[in-house]
């Protein structure tokens, strides 16, 4: 297995799927000649040409809708948002068109499309460029929402997302593009959507984390191990559909849950997971489910304030101690 960055793992996935299926095309701002705002699409224009790797104008609603229309007519578009912050402009097409088309057409028009790009916080890019939107998209039936936390997951999940016949919101984490990890090299390496991954096994508490919070959760688990608290870390990987069974299985074993997320707490995915746990495993809980979330404020610019707004492993450590009564 090669050790590569998440950026390169995503690039490999795009390249392999563009090679595999001529109906796949990639469109977005600066994806072609600029080589990608975050270099995820580096080299693809040269390899696949301007017909399939297309620089779009800054017209998010327009090219998101164009992608959905192209999917109605049989193509498999990959639409890159330079960051998911810009997808706000495209939500009418993502939600009213992509998510509902199959249903309101009585099953006639599937929409095999991937909307991908970085989401969540970056480094000091302030309020309008630091938003975690998974709960927005996960709210809507018809959409699938995927958030990888390792290079291998990023590659395997993106390939599955491109092959999937439904609209997939694929949220990468800008801070994690440079993160390195082992990635299988086989062409057919994929990771199925809707399957959570137990990143670390444990017995005393379950930490459910996604995206940027997975490394933080693993670090917290190491710290807690020193104090004799043995944590299980679960990465749902697909937010919708959520692999709740794996989570419930873990909760039944550990009886204590901390949910770590970068997003705002209110109406968030953590709240949803917490509700599912209470509905399905109430009798297995030894403590109320605890969330560790991003601050309930717009993202500030100042470095110290930004750090305060994003949860770190110490907050996870404290939360686990609270639920484990340690």
């Amino acid at each position: 297995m090669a050790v590569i960055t998440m950026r390169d793992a995503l690039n490999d996935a795009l390249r392999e799927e563009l090679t595999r299926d001529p109906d796949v095309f990639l469109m977005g701002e600066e994806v072609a000649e600029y080589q990608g705002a975050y270099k995820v699409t580096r080299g693809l224009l040269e390899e696949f040409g301007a017909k399939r790797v297309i620089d779009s104008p800054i017209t998010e609603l327009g090219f998101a809708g164009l992608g959905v229309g192209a999917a109605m007519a049989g193509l498999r578009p990959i639409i890159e948002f330079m960051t998911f912050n810009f997808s706000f402009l495209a939500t009418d097409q993502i939600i009213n068109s992509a998510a509902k088309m199959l249903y309101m057409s009585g099953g006639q028009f599937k929409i095999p499309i991937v909307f991908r790009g970085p989401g969540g916080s970056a480094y000091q890019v302030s309020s309008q460029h630091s938003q975690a939107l998974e709960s927005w998209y996960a709210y809507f039936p018809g959409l699938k929402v995927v958030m990888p936390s390792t290079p291998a997951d990023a590659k395997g999940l993106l390939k599955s997302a491109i092959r999937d016949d439904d609209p997939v919101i694929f949220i990468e984490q800008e801070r994690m593009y440079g993160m390195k990890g082992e990635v299988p090299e086989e062409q057919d390496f994929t990771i199925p959507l809707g399957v959570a991954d137990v990143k670390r096994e444990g017995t005393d508490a379950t930490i459910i984390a996604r995206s940027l919070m997975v490394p933080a959760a693993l670090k917290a688990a190491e710290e807690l191990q020193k104090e004799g608290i043995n944590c299980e870390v679960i990465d749902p990987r697909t937010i919708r559909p959520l692999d709740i069974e794996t989570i419930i299985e873990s909760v039944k074993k550990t009886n204590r849950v901390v949910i770590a997320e970068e997003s705002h707490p209110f109406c968030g995915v953590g709240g949803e997971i917490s509700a599912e746990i209470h509905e399905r495993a109430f009798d297995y809980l030894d403590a109320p489910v605890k969330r560790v979330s991003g601050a309930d404020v717009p993202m500030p610019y100042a470095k110290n304030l930004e750090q305060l707004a994003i949860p770190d492993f110490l907050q996870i450590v404290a939360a686990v101690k609270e639920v484990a009564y340690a």
Partner: protein
Amino acid sequence: MATQVIMPKLSPTMEEGQVARWLKKEGDKVSMGEPLAEIDTDKATMEMQALSAGVLLKILVNEGESAPLGEPIAIVGEKDEDISNLLEGKKERAPKAEEEKAEEKPEAKEEPEAKEELKEAKKEKETKDEEAAEPKKAAPAKEKENERDEIKPAVESSGDGRRQLISPIAARMAAEGGVDLSAVQGTGPGGRIIKRDIEAAMKEAKPSPAAAPKLRPMAMPKAQPGAVYGPSAYRDEPMSEMRRTIARRLVTSLGPVPHFFLTTEIEMDRAADMRQQINALYPDAKVSLNDVIIKVVAAALMQHPQVNASFQDKTVRHYEHADIGVAVATENGLITPIVRAADMKSLIEIAVEVRELAGRAREKKLKPEEYMGATFSISNLGMFGIDEFTAVINPPEAAILAIGAMTPKPVVREGEITIRQMMRATMSCDHRVVDGAVGAQFLQTFKEILENPLYLFLG
């Protein structure tokens, strides 16, 4: 399916119980383990927990009314479920005395069918009462109750401190493992019973002392600020004529506080073992034998509320909780910091608290409310090698327990001489409140629990 809630046995000697207060109304949702009512037993007011989940469909025994053990007092089932067959059962079993008592209460006429035979006789009275009774349903019973024994919290905020908190998994494990929750001390926040408390209770319950399981040290639970209790609530009971006479006469013959003394010898091996095991589990807790004694005294007081009392000139004051004064020797002399509501606290909480209080006592940093107003005191001179002594009661408490040193002694067990750790305890009693037999029974319970500390978990 609807099930009957029966009057539960809440103390070893209980034969009937009085419903002091329903904590749920008809139509309320009830989940398993949730407190359903407060029951006055012969010993205390206990919370009765629901043993099934559903909706409280019918209250059969109203507040202030009594029912013998095993008698249905309510029905829990699905919403809108037909419970007529269960009500039939109630009718058959309802004893006559019960019916007559009910007749006096205005809400009794809501009891369906149960009093068929009384209907005729009551008809006239009912029509007359109907309008007047309706708006203030249940209120008269309440007033009456207040007259009889007034519950006054000494501190306003101690109100809901009594609801037993339990985590869902702990409730489930307790139900499956047959653990009596009333005997389990919660170590979670606010005294919440959590998984490890049940695990400990179940471990203790297993009668295999030979192969004691290897204990894994765990991080010590925090002493929770939520577990702070104010001085105990109490109720003043009017003193009987006889009691007044006894008090008067004893004072004139023996001085302001008429003492008498009771001594017993206690085998301490099991208590010492238990203490060791707990310290293996929670090395930071550093539980001492004295802490164990505090816990056992509190438990025994709960079984003998007559001892957890004080002489108040015209009344005898009975306390709800065991606020235990612990004599601490300091440079400036004796002071007795108080472990409030020791009956509600886990051994570990007590250990942490005593250590902390004693520390501050030596630094002279105790606040008055931290050393004044105990309901019972313990003086331990065992560490000075004292085998046995008598202590002077700290008025207005009704008793004090003097603890001597634990020493190995040859004793006869099953016809053979063997060595056991023995300890002598002498109780000084205020005869105005505690008679000889009452004191002796308390001391007997104390000895029994201390010799078999498993009782702590059995209630």
